[in-house]
């Protein structure tokens, strides 16, 4: 279970003027179907590398001071936190921008997958298409 408060407290330093927290939670429905629970799995070694890289890139790109990213794996129930992103910065504008960029980029590039179990069956989520250059183009050209 992700406990937000200690992570937020630990992220704050005297020189910060803002901490932006993104708390991603499991919704009770997806495309009109009622969700029972989700199962997340990851290529853990690669996901850790990718999340570290994202955090470093965000500090360089937006000039924020600190980034914490935590993602849960395994079975999650409706209402539980799947991901927490904490951005600490001298100024709020950079913190908001970095937070948005981090979740948007993570959803397309970090190797984590979600299986959704509904009242009437279970499916692997379609996933977000990879950004250009990451997907291996099909033998007969792009299929998307």
């Amino acid at each position, binding site marked *: 279970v992700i406990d937000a408060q200690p992570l937020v407290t630990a992220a704050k330093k005297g020189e910060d003027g803002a901490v932006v927290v993104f708390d991603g939670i499991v919704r009770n429905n997806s495309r009109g179907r009622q969700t029972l629970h989700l199962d997340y799995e990851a290529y853990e070694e690669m996901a850790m590398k990718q999340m570290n890289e994202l955090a470093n890139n965000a500090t360089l790109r937006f000039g924020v001071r600190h980034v914490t990213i935590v993602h849960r794996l395994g079975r999650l129930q409706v209402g539980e936190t799947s991901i927490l992103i904490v951005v600490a910065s001298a100024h709020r504008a950079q913190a908001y921008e970095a937070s948005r960029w981090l979740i948007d980029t993570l959803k397309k590039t970090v190797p984590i997958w979600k299986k959704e179990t509904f009242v009437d069956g279970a499916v692997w989520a*379609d996933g977000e298409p990879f950004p250009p250059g990451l997907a291996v183009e099909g033998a007969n050209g792009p299929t998307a």
Partner: protein
Amino acid sequence: LFIMQVRVLPFGVLKDSLGPEPFALDIPRGATVSDLLARLGVEAPAIESLGIAVSVNAEYAERSRVLGENDEIGLLPPVSGGASKTAGRVK
């Protein structure tokens, strides 16, 4: 013919066609990512139409990448981490 062994890690929906566990595979020396996908397409015909990415030793790799002995190859369907899915996307 000279062969080498690589380790294949299927993820997400590809576990349904290739099995849930990592496995070893013998392929010709000098084989590329592309060659490996063609070989795996026998068991997983959808492999070229899912828009997957491939990792070699936990880094994203291109189709033309030449594989080496004992490389660890991740087969990565479009990812779905983070919070709930973008609303309104239709398939």
